[in-house]
């Protein structure tokens, strides 16, 4: 009887250890790509979308984000992502990895196991593989760096009715800077992001309004050229002490944004990368 008790006891232990896997999210098929600007930190809100070559799928970042969740394709060993930025430029990243299938159980079927993330080719300034093995939940796997280009100033137009200030969305057909710039002026409702001339202490913009009127806005600034700490990046031109030198807008007042970070390079009187709204113009 005593021996039988021992047999039963050990049998229960043995069979209780035959666990079944949890079938939920067995694949580690997603990676997080984070974007950084060298010397400035996170590259926030500059990405429009990401397309994967050979598919129709488009992946959009969250409203304000410096990272993006992207899928990995099973079976293949490399995948090309095409990144589209708000200034219209594109970058490509050819990502290599190992993909293995594994049967899990008759209830869970199979899973795909991804390892060995590596960059085969990219047009980015720098790509760092932070974690070569995707995890679930996904964590940051790749950090993409780009050289800083803090050569865009931001202005926002506002109006005051009584004691209430509100954004003033101008009806603008186009904005022309007084120099040949590779960058385009971007309008985000009441805000305009204006490329500044690295070769002059002032840049003048002509706002061609939809009613045919032309308004002028001249920004003056001090230029500071600093060597980049990153070997692959060109020297960076910082624009500081930005102010309105001249304007034909019916300006009541200007107000530098006070909520900007307070470090010396990120004062609202200086350009940043990604660009910020440096000051508001009250009409």
């Amino acid at each position, binding site marked *: 009887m005593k*021996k039988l008790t*021992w*047999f039963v*006891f*050990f*049998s229960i*232990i*043995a*069979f*209780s*250890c*035959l*666990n079944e*896997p949890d079938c939920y999210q067995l694949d580690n098929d997603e990676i997080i790509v984070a974007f950084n600007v060298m010397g400035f930190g996170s590259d926030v809100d500059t990405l429009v979308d990401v397309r994967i070559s050979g*598919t129709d*799928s488009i992946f959009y970042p969250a409203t304000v984000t410096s990272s993006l969740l992207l*899928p990995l*394709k*099973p*079976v293949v060993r490399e995948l090309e992502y095409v990144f589209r930025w708000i200034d219209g430029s594109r970058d490509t990243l050819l990502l290599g990895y*190992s993909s*293995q*299938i*594994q*049967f*899990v*159980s*008759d*209830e*869970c*079927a*199979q899973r795909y*196991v991804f390892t060995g993330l590596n960059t085969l080719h990219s047009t980015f300034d720098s790509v760092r593989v932070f974690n070569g093995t995707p995890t679930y939940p996904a964590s940051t796997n790749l950090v993409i760096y780009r050289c800083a280009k803090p050569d865009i100033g931001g202005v926002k137009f506002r109006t005051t009715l009584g004691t209430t200030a509100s954004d003033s969305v101008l009806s603008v057909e186009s904005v022309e800077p007084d120099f040949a710039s590779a960058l385009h002026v971007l309008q985000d409702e009441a805000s305009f992001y204006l490329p500044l001339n690295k070769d002059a202490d002032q840049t003048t913009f002509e706002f061609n309004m939809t009613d045919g009127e032309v308004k002028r806005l001249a920004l003056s600034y001090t230029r500071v050229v600093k060597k980049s700490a990153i070997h692959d990046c060109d020297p960076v031109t910082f624009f500081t002490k930005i102010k309105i030198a001249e304007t034909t807008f019916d300006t009541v007042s200007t107000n530098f944004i006070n909520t900007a970070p307070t470090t010396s390079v990120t004062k609202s009187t200086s350009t940043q990368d990604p660009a910020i709204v440096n000051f508001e113009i009250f009409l």
Partner: protein
Amino acid sequence: MRYFYNITFILLSLSLAAVAQDKDTVKIKPDFRPTGFRIGTDLIPIVRNSYDKTFSGWEVNGDVDFYRYYLTVDYGSWGRTYLSDTSSYSNNGTYFRVGVDVNFLKKDPDRNMFFFGARYGISNFSEDLSVVRSSPVWGPLNGDYHNSDVNAHWLELTTGLRVKIWKFIWMGYTARLKFGLKTGATPDMLPHDVPGYGRADEDSYWGFNYQIFVRFPVRKSGAIPLKK
């Protein structure tokens, strides 16, 4: 929960070992010459073959005594077949274990055993997987995968009992904690099930054999003192 079972199992085994020690001890010179060998089989796969359609297998076991130490070998084969909604899997292969058991019932006149031991296991197997799956992003992901002639090896800690049932017949069980699995390179498909070990994605795995043996004596053993 698994750790609880592990600890409970080890503690109970050690308690049993402690109880098994005789208070009276007489020192005799150990005789390391073998007195016989046992050949047996695992009854669990034989029964399992009849009711588990996903499993087919067998295992034979043997040991030979050197005083209280037993050289043990196991040889077996198993294959599995699974069918899921999107895939079908099958494998088959053979395995071999070799190791040593130490009997803690030193003075039992029937040579019953309560033992702890260790094993080194090796396996050679093949497996096939067919997948019919579609992804909203990637479209069809159908494929056939095959791992052929894959080698694997692992280690085991064992404990168990061997009890003389009748004349030359012994029965008993072996519980085994398997760990340290290493498999050969399989570039496209990770192994699911290694014959002799179990699920390849588990860092450690329990195994259990309920065995029956036939003992073949080769010489008479020396007298075992019962009482001082």
